[in-house]
C-alpha cells in the first residue's frame, strides 16, 4: 500500500514541504548541537593528546590543566625517574594569561614553557613560521591569530614582557583560549615558579602496567597524584560535558517534540481531510493493519526525507560555517547519525498515533451516506 501512502503524501505538496521542513529543522538542531559538543570536546583535549606522555603527574587535588593549579618541586623529577617501569620524566609548565593587543583585542593564552634541552613544551604542529621559539619570541595558535588579527612579526605585550610572534601553531585552540609557546626562560618570568613546575609528563617502559606505575608514584611521593593520558584528557574536557550535555539534552527534547508535532499535525490534517477515503478503504476490505500501515508509511516518508534534508544541511553547515565563526567546530560522527536516525523513526511512529486513532474510529457504514 506504498502507492496510496506516497500519493496521499504528494497530493498536498505545501503540507509535505512543511512536514519535511519541520523535521529537517529539528534534525539540523539536534545534529549541529551534537556535532558542536563532539567538536568542542575533541578540541579541549587535542593539545594534551599531542603531548608524548603515558602519565601526567600533578599536585594532589589537581584535576585538570585550567581550573585547579598544580605546583610540584623540580627535584621530584629524579624521584619519579627512579621508580620501577619509568622510561622518562619531563617537567611541563604553563599558565593562562590575559592581555590585549595593540589594536585592543582581548586575548587569552595558555603559555607553555618550551625547553629546548629537554624537548618539552612543543606545539602539536606548526602552520607557518618557526618551529620553536627563541628568546623573546612566541608562537601562537593559528585560529587565535586569525580571530584576533595577530600576524607574524607582530609584537605582543604579555605580563610585562615583549614578545615577537615568530610562528603560528596548529591544534592548540581550546575555543575560549589557546595554547602559545615561549622559551623556558621567558615563560619562567611569567610563571614565577622558581625550582618548580606544574606537571611532569611520564613515559613508561614497554610492558609496564600504568595503574601499577600510578600507585608507585602516589605511594612514594606524598601529596602527588598521577593519571593516565586518557584520564587527563577526560578531566580537561569534563567542563564541556558537564555544562554542555544538559543544554543539549533540553534542546534535543525540544527538537524531538517539534519534529514529532510537525509530522503528527500534518499527517493528522491529511487524515482528517481524507477520512471518507479511509472509510471507503475500510468498506472495500482493507484491514486495520493495512490502514495503519498507510499512515505510518506517510509519517516515515516525511520523517526520513526530513532526516536526509536535515543531515545534508547539518553537514553543509559543518563544512562552511567554521570559516566565518571559528567557534563553530562541529564534528558529526557516524554513531550520532545512527541515533538521530533512530530518533527520526521514533518521531514518525509517535506522530502516527493520533491519525491512527482517528482512522480506527471511522465507521465504514458511513460511506453509504451521500
Amino acid at each position: 500500500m506504498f502507492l496510496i501512502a506516497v500519493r496521499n503524501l504528494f497530493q498536498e505538496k505545501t503540507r509535505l514541504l512543511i512536514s519535511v521542513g519541520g523535521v529537517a529543522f529539528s534534525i539540523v538542531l539536534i545534529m549541529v548541537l551534537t556535532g558542536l559538543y563532539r567538536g568542542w570536546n575533541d578540541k579541549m583535549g587535542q593539545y594534551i593528546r599531542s603531548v608524548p606522555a603515558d602519565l601526567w603527574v600533578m599536585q594532589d587535588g589537581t584535576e585538570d590543566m585550567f581550573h585547579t593549579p598544580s605546583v610540584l618541586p623540580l627535584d621530584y623529577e629524579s624521584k619519579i625517574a627512579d621508580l620501577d617501569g619509568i622510561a622518562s620524566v619531563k617537567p611541563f609548565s604553563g599558565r593562562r594569561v590575559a592581555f590585549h593587543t595593540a589594536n585592543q583585542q582581548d586575548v587569552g593564552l595558555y603559555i607553555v614553557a618550551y625547553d629546548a634541552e629537554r624537548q618539552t613544551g612543543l606545539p602539536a604542529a606548526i602552520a607557518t613560521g618557526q618551529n620553536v621559539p627563541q628568546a623573546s619570541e612566541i608562537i601562537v595558535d593559528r585560529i587565535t591569530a586569525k580571530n584576533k588579527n595577530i600576524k607574524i612579526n607582530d609584537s605582543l605585550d604579555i605580563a610585562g614582557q615583549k614578545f615577537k610572534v615568530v610562528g603560528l601553531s596548529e591544534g592548540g585552540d581550546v575555543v575560549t583560549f589557546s595554547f602559545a609557546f615561549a622559551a623556558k626562560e621567558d615563560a619562567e618570568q611569567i610563571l614565577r615558579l622558581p625550582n618548580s613546575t606544574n606537571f611532569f609528563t611520564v613515559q613508561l617502559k614497554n610492558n609496564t602496567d600504568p595503574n601499577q606505575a600510578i600507585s608507585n608514584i602516589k605511594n612514594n611521593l606524598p601529596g602527588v597524584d598521577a593519571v593516565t593520558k586518557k584520564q587527563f584528557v577526560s578531566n580537561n574536557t569534563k567542563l564541556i560535558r558537564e555544562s554542555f550535555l544538559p543544554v543539549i539534552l533540553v534542546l534535543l527534547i525540544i527538537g524531538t517534540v517539534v519534529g514529532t508535532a510537525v509530522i503528527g499535525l500534518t499527517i493528522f490534517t491529511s487524515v482528517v481531510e481524507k477520512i471518507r477515503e479511509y472509510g471507503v478503504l475500510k468498506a472495500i476490505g482493507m484491514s486495520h493493519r493495512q490502514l495503519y500501515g498507510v499512515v505510518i508509511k506517510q509519517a516515515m516518508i516525511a520523517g526520513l526525507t526530513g532526516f536526509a534534508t536535515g543531515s545534508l544541511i547539518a553537514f553543509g553547515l559543518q563544512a562552511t560555517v567554521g570559516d566565518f565563526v571559528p567557534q563553530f567546530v562541529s564534528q558529526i560522527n557516524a554513531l550520532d547519525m545512527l541515533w538521530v536516525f533512530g530518533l527520526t523513526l521514533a518521531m514518525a511512529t509517535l506522530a502516527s498515533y493520533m491519525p491512527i486513532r482517528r482512522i480506527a474510529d471511522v465507521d465504514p457504514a458511513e460511506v453509504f451516506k451521500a
Partner: protein
Amino acid sequence: MSIIEAKNITKIFGSGHTAVKAINGVSLKVEAGDIILIMGPSGSGKTTLISMLGTLMRPTGGTIWIGGEDISEMSGAKLANLRLHHLGFMFQSFNLLSALTAQQNAAVPLMIAGLSKKPALKKAEELLEKLQLGERLDSLPKNLSGGEKQRVAVARALANQPAVILADEPTANLDSKTGHEVMQLLCNTACSEGRAVIIVSHDARLKDVAKRVITIEDGRLTKEEPGNHEPNCPTEHGGQKQ
C-alpha cells in the same frame, strides 16, 4: 446455496422511546446471476438493508449467511477479508481515492488483496479497457466526468471478482442517460460473469437492467416483481446505448 441469505433481520437505531426500527423482519435470498433492484421511498430502510447485507453494519436481530457462513459471529477483521474477496461496492458519490489515477483506483482492491503493484495495474488496465476507459487510465478523478468516475468505480467493484456487487444509489449523481448506461454496463458484465448485483435506487428506469425488483416500505419488503433484463446476458455488452 444462496450467495447471500438474510433471515428475518431487523435493525433498531437508538433505544427507549427514541428507538427507530429501520428494518423490520426482512428475509431475502440472493442467487448467483441475480440482478436485484431495491426501491422504496426515502427513509424506508434501503441503505440500512444494503449496509447489513454488505457486512458494514450488524443487524439487531435475525441472521445473515454469506456463502453459507453465518456472519454474526465473525470478527471485524474477518468481515473485512470477506468484503475484500466476495463483495464489491459502489456508492452514490463514487468515492474514488482523489490522489490516485483511474487505473490506480481500479487496482486498489487487488493490491489490498496482496497482488503486487505491476500485475495489479495491468489487471486494472484490462478492466478499464473493457469499460471503455482505456484512454483515461492516467486521469485523476477530478478530471473525469461523473459517468467516467462511476465506471472506474465499476472496475474497482469488479476487480477482485466478487460474488456480489452492492450499489447504493449509484446513479443519483449522474444524468439519467449516463446513469442508465453505466448500470447497464455493470449488470451485463456481472451477468455474463455469473455475479449477482444488488442496486438500491429511486430510479425506476433501472428496472430495465434488473431481473428482480423488490419494494421496501417502512422497513419491510412489500412487493417483488420481475425486472426487464433480458433473460440471457448479452455477451459483448450489446444492450448498451452509445
